[in-house]
């Protein structure tokens, strides 16, 4: 049995021992323990060092608000988590915990020197100290700060766990499974509502789990809890989620709940998620999030052994652990007496209760007297003494003049009143209102359909919690019902203090406000002195409330201290914003399934499998993966591309163009619609003919391009770029639906209906001729830029005669499930023509040799048709089309715009870098005007010369001029040429 384990009481299983280790020492707890309760059962308070001063720290709470006992937890196989609150980590067999912020060991820590240098480590230390010399920043200050900064150490191994997410809908979401939440879930589900009840702890019950005295409807509180839970679990319309924290409350009652599924388990199942993000949409939300006890601010209030009074009560009543053998209680609120009484009843000798108030309620004094507890009313704490554990406190009457007295103790229990947990209410954009009587903010005006019940609403009595929850769950108009009768000890009054009054000099002994970030009362006062008057500024300057606990225990004390220092009421200095997540949340659960293959969609074309089997090297093109080139053994990309280019121009190259966007435009006004969407004229395009279409945004800049074929009077097959498919569809739908709703046109995406196999090269016609049915392939009957419907290899095809290479070309569209088979047949039949598969790299080279642009490569959203040499694509007679008016804008008709040109390097084998800047003078001193940039650059195997496309100011007037491309090590000289490098007359197309 653990030394500090009470013989009886609590909800733990004393017979079930659980082994764990702490900083390498093997210890044991029992089933039902948290790591904190197990450590305390072993008499261990001192568990870590603080972040800034490396002061010894203990366990200050029993819940999620913990700001001190933050440990590293190793669950094995790379599962290491940092800053885990010992108070929320359930104990399991084999758990390994370690302290943070200490070196070489917890007991002998070098960082404690920070405290000896204390006066210089004051507020704003970083801002003030590391200002100069400038050169020291990078080499001295930053490395030191980086080494000492941060809370805990980050894990290095790949996270082996998986994470889940789930959308859920319910009528009533109840957050918090204490008495208010349980009552709400009971009444809501009784009315047939679909209810989700979530609580962050392993067990539902909240405060009831440590309530040993109250009666609910005549029944012991914990017995009532058991039957209430049994009722809820039995109801089909209730989902009970334990270990589930509502971390964020967003618009329209949308909440994120994180359910922890395996952090309490020793044996893990790799297929089961560690955590699940519930994305809940609720018609109504009941917030039953309780309240957090406030620490008191006095010198040495962080000595190990110092904790919240309610926490000591929880350790005793729920875990059967005495937090000390001689605790002393310091309070300004009635509720701390509950801890003193329960401890005394358990046989613990309570040293004294120090109550700051002069008039302690008589009932409390009477009961304390009965239990033999000394109560010092009107007293304050001047200091807490001790090293690695509190050993005594020095107390004195609040009214100066009285003698100081030292009281020995081994635990110091404090209570500064209670702070309703309004985090979620506030995240939901509710307006808080200040209650002077409570010294706290409570929910005021709701922004969403939600209600609060119990302590989070400033109603601290068990009776109020149950009846408030009951009313909220049932949707009663009254805030509180009378369903429950309760017998309880009513200890709910107290006063609020910024800090304990003290006659000691403030410089002596640190009085902490924010335990996790080591912010003291002096820091806040100093910030005010230095001119920070808004709480938002004070917070950022002192960093109070900015640690991972987000100031759950410190915010209100910080506000009160600032208010006092400023001499202004607390409501006048504002309140910092509550932001999600409520508690630290793993990155994993935010990522959910989005890792590995599911990180993003990889779209694969119908022939992808063939390409993979034939050694293709792929590249991503928007979400698609496309074959980039098909290397033969021993080939690198340059060699493979050179071979693919040559083979295509010599005989036949085959490539997959299925990723192109395709839209079937149908309707009486289809041609008119295209007239308005594209720069080109469409009315006179004959059935069976194709035209290259250029699409602009309304700003006059090139948006997309593609070939459009006319299948019938009222039916067009439109193609778009691969990356532009969705954008073009949305753009077209926008105009069609909202500007020209009178047009009789419908758009249907057929991008994935058709597999597209592009064949290019002089022998393509011979290759396909034997397999094509119902299409006359004769060059006159089926000229360049034409489309025919028929069959190929027995399957339907829309056969385009188009070319993106300058060679005779066909794009064979077949229904996509036939794509792979048709490709394989073509490869087979093409063997006698030395058919060669090529990928996007060769495609780019072949089109660049012809000066064909790629939207997004030669254009960047600031090119007009004329800029890229395509003024010819503008239908001059058309009264209007999208972007037409913008082509008259002053900056677009201005001279010297950048225009598309070709570049030839002086040294033929030098391939320029895409994106390289172009200048007019070879050796000018900076600043040098950059007059353009390289958009595409390749080695052309067919021309045995490097080629490049570029946009250059006034480029078309510079033909033959020498320009320069400066690189880090050299300057390339280039000659401006026409962008068509190959077969300028187009003879090869018309064969």
């Amino acid at each position: 049995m653990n030394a500090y384990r009470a013989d009886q009481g609590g909800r733990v299983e004393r017979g079930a021992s659980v082994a764990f280790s702490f900083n390498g020492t093997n210890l044991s707890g029992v089933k039902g323990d948290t790591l904190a309760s197990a450590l305390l059962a072993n008499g261990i308070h001192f568990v870590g060092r603080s972040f800034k001063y490396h002061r010894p720290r203990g366990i200050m709470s029993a819940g999620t608000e913990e700001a001190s006992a933050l440990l590293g937890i190793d669950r094995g196989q790379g599962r290491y988590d940092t800053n885990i609150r010992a108070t929320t980590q359930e104990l399991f067999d084999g758990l390994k915990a370690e302290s943070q912020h200490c070196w070489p060991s917890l007991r002998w820590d070098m960082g404690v020197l920070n405290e000896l240098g204390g006066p210089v480590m004051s507020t704003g230390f970083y801002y003030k100290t590391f200002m100069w010399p400038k050169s020291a920043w990078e080499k001295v200050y930053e490395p030191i700060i980086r080494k000492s900064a941060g809370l805990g150490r980050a894990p290095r191994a790949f996270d082996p766990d998986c994470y889940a997410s789930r959308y859920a809908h319910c009528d009533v979401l109840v957050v918090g499974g204490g008495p208010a939440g349980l009552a709400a879930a009971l009444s809501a589900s009784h009315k047939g509502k679909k209810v989700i009840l979530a609580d962050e702890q392993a067990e539902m019950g909240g405060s009831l789990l440590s309530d040993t005295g109250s009666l609910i409807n005549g029944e012991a509180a914990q017995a009532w809890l058991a039957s209430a839970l049994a009722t809820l679990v039995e109801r089909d319309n209730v989902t009970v989620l334990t270990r589930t924290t509502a971390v964020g409350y967003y618009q329209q009652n949308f909440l994120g709940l994180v359910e922890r599924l395996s952090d309490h388990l020793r044996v893990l199942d790799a297929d089961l998620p560690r955590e699940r993000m519930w994305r809940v949409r609720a018609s109504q939300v009941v917030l039953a999030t309780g309240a957090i006890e406030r620490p008191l601010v006095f010198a040495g209030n962080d000595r190990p052994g110092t904790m919240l009074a309610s926490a000591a009560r929880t350790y005793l009543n729920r875990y059967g652990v005495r937090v000390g053998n001689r605790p002393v209680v310091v309070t300004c609120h009635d509720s701390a007496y509950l801890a003193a009484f329960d401890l005394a009843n358990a046989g613990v000798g309570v040293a004294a209760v120090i109550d700051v108030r002069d008039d302690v309620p008589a009932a409390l004094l009477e009961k304390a007297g009965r239990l033999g507890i000394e109560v010092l009313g009107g007293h304050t704490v001047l200091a807490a003494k001790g090293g690695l554990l509190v050993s005594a406190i020095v107390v004195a009457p609040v009214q100066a003049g009285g003698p100081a007295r030292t009281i020995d103790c081994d635990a110091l229990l404090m209570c500064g009143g209670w702070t309703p947990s309004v985090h979620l209410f506030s995240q939901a954009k509710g307006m808080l209102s200040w209650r002077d009587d409570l010294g706290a903010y409570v929910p005021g005006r709701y922004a969403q359909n939600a209600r609060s019940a119990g302590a989070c609403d400033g109603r601290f009595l068990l009776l109020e919690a149950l009846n408030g929850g009951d009313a909220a769950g049932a949707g009663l108009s009254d805030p509180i019902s009378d369903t429950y009768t309760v017998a309880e000890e009513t200890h709910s009054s107290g006063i609020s203090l910024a800090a304990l009054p003290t006659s000691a000099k403030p410089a002596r002994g640190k009085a902490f406000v924010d335990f996790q970030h080591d912010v003291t009362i002096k820091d806040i006062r100093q910030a005010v002195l230095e001119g920070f008057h808004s709480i938002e500024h004070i917070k950022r300057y002192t960093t109070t409330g900015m640690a991972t606990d987000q100031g759950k225990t410190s915010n209100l004390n910080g506000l009160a201290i600032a208010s006092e220092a400023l001499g202004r009421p607390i409501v006048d200095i504002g309140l910092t914003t509550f932001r999600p997540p409520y508690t630290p949340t793993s990155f994993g659960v935010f990522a959910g399934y989005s890792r590995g293959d599911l990180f993003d969609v990889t779209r694969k074309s119908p022939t992808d499998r063939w390409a993979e089997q034939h050694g293709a090297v792929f590249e991503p093109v928007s979400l698609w993966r496309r074959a980039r080139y098909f290397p033969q053994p021993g080939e690198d990309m340059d060699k493979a591309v050179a071979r693919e280019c040559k083979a295509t121009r010599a005989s036949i190259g085959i490539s997959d163009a299925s990723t192109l966007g395709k839209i079937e435009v149908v309707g009486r006004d289809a041609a008119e619609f295209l007239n308005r969407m594209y720069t080109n004229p469409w009315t006179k395009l004959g059935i069976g003919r194709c035209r290259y279409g250029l699409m602009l945004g309304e700003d006059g800049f090139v948006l997309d391009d593609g070939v459009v074929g006319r299948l019938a009077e009222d039916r067009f097959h439109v193609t778009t770029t691969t990356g532009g498919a969705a954008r073009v569809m949305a753009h077209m739908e926008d105009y069609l639906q909202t500007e020209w709703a009178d047009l009789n046109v419908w758009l249907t995406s057929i991008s994935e209906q058709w597999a597209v196999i592009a064949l290019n090269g002089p022998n393509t016609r011979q290759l396909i001729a034997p397999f094509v049915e119902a299409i006359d392939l004769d060059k006159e009957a089926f000229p360049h830029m034409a489309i025919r419907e028929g069959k190929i290899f027995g399957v339907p095809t829309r056969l385009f005669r188009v070319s993106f290479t300058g060679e005779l070309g066909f794009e064979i569209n077949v229904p996509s499930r036939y794509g792979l088979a048709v490709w394989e047949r073509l490869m087979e039949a093409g063997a006698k023509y030395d058919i060669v598969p090529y990928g996007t790299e060769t495609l780019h080279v072949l089109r660049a040799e012809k000066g064909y642009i790629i939207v997004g490569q030669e254009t960047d959203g600031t090119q007009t048709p004329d800029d890229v040499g395509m003024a010819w694509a503008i239908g001059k007679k058309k009264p209007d089309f999208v972007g037409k008016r913008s082509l008259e804008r002053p900056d677009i008709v201005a001279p010297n715009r950048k225009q598309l040109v070709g570049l030839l390097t002086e040294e033929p084998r030098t391939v320029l870098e895409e994106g390289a800047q172009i200048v007019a003078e070879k050796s000018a001193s900076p600043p040098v005007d950059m007059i353009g940039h390289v958009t595409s650059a390749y080695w052309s195997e067919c021309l045995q010369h490097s080629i490049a496309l570029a946009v250059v100011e006034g480029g078309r007037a510079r033909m033959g001029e020498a320009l320069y491309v400066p690189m880090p090590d050299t300057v390339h000289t280039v000659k401006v040429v026409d962008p068509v490098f190959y077969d300028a007359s187009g003879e090869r197309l018309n064969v």
Partner: protein
Amino acid sequence: MSEGFFAGDKPHNPLEGAVFAAGAGPELQLAVGDDCARLSLRIAPAHLDRAIGAFGFDIPSKIGEMSSGAQRSALCLGPDEWLLMAPESEREKITAGFAEIGAQTSHSLVDVGHRTVAIDISGPASAMVLNAGCPLDLENMAVGACARTILDKAEVVLMKLEGEYYRLETVRSFAEFVWKFLSTAGREFEQCRDKTRVTGL
């Protein structure tokens, strides 16, 4: 399809051979749906009766409604948009029916039979697995209803065929992703799992 040259080749479904490893369990089954004819119909709602005549089967007029029978089904996806489905052998009959009304009734009928792949999701865990990535309230979705919506990063058309039986259609190149997503989300519903770990069941 002509006999001879193409004989022996089967249309290639990108999910060909996909098997849900945990599929033996009673909680969840995933299966690749059969190929069928699919046609995207666009027509003015006022002319829906003529479309019904051409289709030879009821076509619902309200978005999210679906009519289904052994030889025909029709999903209303937008105010003037329907997805018509039928066995592949019925396709020509349907297109011929619409060709007949084409002269007097402007509409758009586009073959999208190869555009999407169907996946069937069934079992008590089906809604939970879909809700891993789909924001719809599936419990309140009527049997026989349909919706175009989102499943994680993919657009899908979802049909609720029975209380615990859903079918989704996703475009071909997203099918592999959608299958993997459902398989991954479904892993925790394998047969012999400890139910206490799977909340909400």
